[in-house]
C-alpha cells in the first residue's frame, strides 16, 4: 500500500478539515493533497533519484514526504546538525537526487555532486502554482518510501530503508482512520530526520489529528506553542520532557488542553517521569519504544500502565514505570540468548521482533532474517506479565538526549591526540540527558585540553563531559575492551 493513499483518503473524506499548522492559518487535507501533487510534478522535472530534505520542521515537510511518495521516489531527510563536512558527505551519498534545502542552509551544501539543489522557498512556491497542481502524474508502483540515515556503530551513517508497505502497515494497524476529534492537535518537535518525525506526519494525517510543527525545540517555544495552539497530544524525547517540566514548574502553566504526552527515543530517568505524573495529573503518559528499522513504535507503556505502576506498593509492578510496556498486538517480540533461542521471562538477551511494519534493512545490508525476525541489537528482558525492559544497545552506542552517539568515532579522535595512549568512551547515566558521554583515558594531558581537541573535530554533543584518568584500561584475554566493567565502576559514584 502506498503512503499517498493515506492522504488521498483523508483529503477525500475531509477536504476542509485542518491538517497542518496553526488554528489561524493552517493547511487543510484537501490543500495538502493539492500541494503534494504540485510539488511532485515540479520535483519530477528537476532531476531523478531521491528527494532529500535538509531543513527545519514545518508544513513543507509533510508536503515533501507525500510528494516524494507520489513520485515513488525515496524521501531522505538529512541531519542539518551535522558539521558541514559530514552533511556534504551524506548528501553526496544520496546522488542522484533532488534536495530541498532551507535557504540559510544552502551555502553549507553548495556544489554537491550529482545533486540538484532547490530552496525550500522555491519548493513551497511551486506547490501553490496552479499549473503544477493541474499536472498529470503517472501511477508508479512504489517501493522505498523513506531513507533515514542512522548513526551507525562504526560512526559511518547507515541508510535505513523503509518501504511504503512497512509504513502504511504501521499506520493502519495502530491508528483508526479519522479517529481523532476535531479539537485534537499534535505538537511535533522531533526533527524531520528522526523516524518519529516521519511517523507523526503519517499517523497525524490518517488519524485526522492536526499536526503543528515546532521548527526547533526549546522548552519556552514548546510551552508557548502548546498553549497557543491548544495542543492535545505531543511526543518528545526524555531530555525535552525534563526541560519542559522545569519550565512548567517555574511558571505555573499547566497546559489544560493537553491530553497525552508520549516519550521515547532514549532512557527515561525515573525521577523525571514521576515528576511529570505529579505535575500534570490530567495528562495521559505513553512510553513508546521503537527503532528506525521498525517503522517507529513496537512496544507501548500506556496511560493505565503508568497509573497502575505509580500507585502500586508491589515493587514488581512499580518498576514497570521503567519499562517500555508491552509489544503491539500486530507483531511478535521475543528475547533471545546468544544461541538464538528464546530465553525465559526475567532473563536478559537480545530483543527480536517480527511483523509487517519491520524493515530491518539498510541500503546494501539486510539484517532481517528470511523468516521475518529482526534482531534489534537492543538488550532487554520481559517480566512475567510481558512488560519489556530495554537496557540499551547491545553494542555500546551512547544515547544522549535522544541522539545516538557512537563511542568509536570519539575514541578515534581522542586516539589521534599525541598525549593519548589509550581511550574508551562510554555512556554514563544522566538525569537530564539519559546518558552523558564520558571518556576513560590513559593520557598525559589535562581534561580541558582533550575536550577542546574533540570539540574542534566533532560537534559539541559528542564532546565528553567527564574524563577519567587511568594507568591502563581493562581488557579480556582476547584483547576486547571491557566497557561494561568501566561503566559499572563509573556509573555508581556519578549517580549518587
Amino acid at each position, binding site marked *: 500500500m502506498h503512503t499517498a493513499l493515506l492522504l488521498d*483518503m483523508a483529503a477525500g473524506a475531509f477536504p476542509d478539515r485542518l491538517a497542518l499548522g496553526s488554528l489561524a492559518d493552517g493547511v487543510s487535507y484537501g490543500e495538502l493533497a493539492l500541494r503534494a501533487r504540485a510539488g511532485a510534478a515540479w520535483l519530477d522535472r528537476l532531476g531523478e533519484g531521491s528527494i532529500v530534505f535538509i531543513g527545519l520542521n514545518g508544513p513543507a515537510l509533510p508536503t515533501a514526504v507525500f510528494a516524494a511518495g507520489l513520485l515513488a521516489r525515496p524521501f531522505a531527510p538529512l541531519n542539518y546538525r551535522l558539521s558541514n563536512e559530514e552533511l556534504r558527505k551524506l548528501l553526496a551519498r544520496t546522488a542522484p537526487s533532488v534536495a530541498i534545502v532551507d535557504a540559510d542552509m544552502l551555502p553549507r551544501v553548495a556544489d554537491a555532486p550529482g545533486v540538484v539543489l532547490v530552496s525550500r522557498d522555491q519548493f513551497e512556491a511551486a506547490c501553490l502554482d496552479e499549473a503544477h497542481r493541474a499536472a498529470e502524474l503517472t501511477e508508479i508502483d512504489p517501493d522505498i518510501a523513506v531513507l533515514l540515515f542512522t548513526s551507525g556503530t562504526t560512526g559511518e551513517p547507515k541508510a535505513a530503508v523503509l518501504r511504503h508497505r512497512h509504513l502504511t502497515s504501521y499506520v493502519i494497524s495502530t491508528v483508526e482512520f479519522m479517529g481523532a476529534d476535531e479539537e485534537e492537535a499534535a505538537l511535533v518537535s522531533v526533527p524531520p530526520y528522526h523516524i518519529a518525525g516521519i511517523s507523526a506526519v503519517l499517523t497525524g494525517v490518517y488519524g485526522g489529528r492536526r499536526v503543528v510543527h515546532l521548527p526547533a525545540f526549546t522548552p519556552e517555544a514548546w510551552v508557548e506553542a502548546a498553549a497557543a495552539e491548544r495542543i492535545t*497530544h505531543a511526543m518528545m524525547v526524555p531530555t525535552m520532557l525534563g526541560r519542559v517540566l522545569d519550565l512548567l514548574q517555574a511558571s505555573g502553566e499547566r497546559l489544560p488542553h493537553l491530553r*497525552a504526552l508520549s516519550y521515547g527515543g532514549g532512557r527515561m530517568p525515573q525521577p523525571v517521569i514521576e515528576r511529570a505524573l505529579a505535575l500534570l495529573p490530567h495528562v495521559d503518559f505513553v512510553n513508546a519504544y521503537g527503532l528506525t528499522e521498525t517503522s517507529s513504535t513496537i512496544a507501548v507503556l500506556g496511560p493505565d500502565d503508568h497509573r497502575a505502576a505509580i500507585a502500586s506498593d508491589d515493587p514488581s509492578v512499580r518498576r514497570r514505570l521503567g519499562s517500555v510496556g508491552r509489544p503491539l498486538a500486530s507483531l511478535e517480540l521475543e528475547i533471545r540468548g546468544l544461541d538464538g533461542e528464546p530465553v525465559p521471562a526475567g532473563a536478559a538477551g537480545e530483543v527480536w521482533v517480527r511483523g509487517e511494519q519491520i524493515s530491518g534493512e539498510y541500503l546494501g545490508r539486510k539484517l532481517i532474517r528470511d523468516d521475518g525476525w529482526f534482531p534489534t541489537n537492543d538488550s532487554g528482558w520481559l517480566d512475567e506479565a510481558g512488560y519489556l525492559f530495554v537496557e540499551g544497545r547491545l553494542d555500546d552506542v551512547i544515547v544522549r538526549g535522544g541522539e545516538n552517539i557512537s563511542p568509536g568515532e570519539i575514541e578515534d579522535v581522542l586516539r589521534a591526540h599525541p598525549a593519548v595512549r589509550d581511550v574508551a568512551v562510554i555512556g554514563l547515566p544522566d538525569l537530564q540527558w539519559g546518558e552523558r558521554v564520558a571518556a576513560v583515558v590513559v593520557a598525559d594531558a589535562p581534561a580541558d585540553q582533550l575536550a577542546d581537541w574533540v570539540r574542534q573535530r566533532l560537534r559539541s554533543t559528542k564532546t565528553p563531559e567527564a574524563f577519567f584518568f587511568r594507568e591502563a584500561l581493562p581488557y579480556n584475554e582476547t584483547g576486547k575492551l571491557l566497557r561494561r566493567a568501566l561503566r559499572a565502576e563509573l556509573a555508581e559514584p556519578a549517580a549518587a
Partner: protein
Amino acid sequence: MNLTPGSRWKSAVCDTEAVVVRPPAAPATLECGGQPMVAFSAAKPGGLTVDPAHAGGSLLGKRYLDEETGLEALCSKAGAGALSVSGRPLTIKEAKKLPSSD
C-alpha cells in the same frame, strides 16, 4: 484475481474502492455489491447493479476480513455495496486502539 498486498480494486457497481492489506491464503475473488471488483486502473463493466443481498455498504477507513482465507482489505472509498469473498460477507476488523505514540 491477483490479490497481492497493496493492490487496489474498485467496485463494478458502486463507488467503493479497496486496497488489499493481507493476501488470501488461497485463490479468492473479492466482490462488492455481489459483483467481482475490478482492477483500479481497468474500465468498469457496464449494466451491473448492487445485489440487494450485498447492499449493506462499505465504510471508509475500515479494515475488512475474510476469516476463511485470511484476506484483509482496507476500504479507501465508501460505497453502497458490501464487500464479500465468494459470496461470504467480510467482517470489520476492529482496530486495536493504541494509545497515541507519535
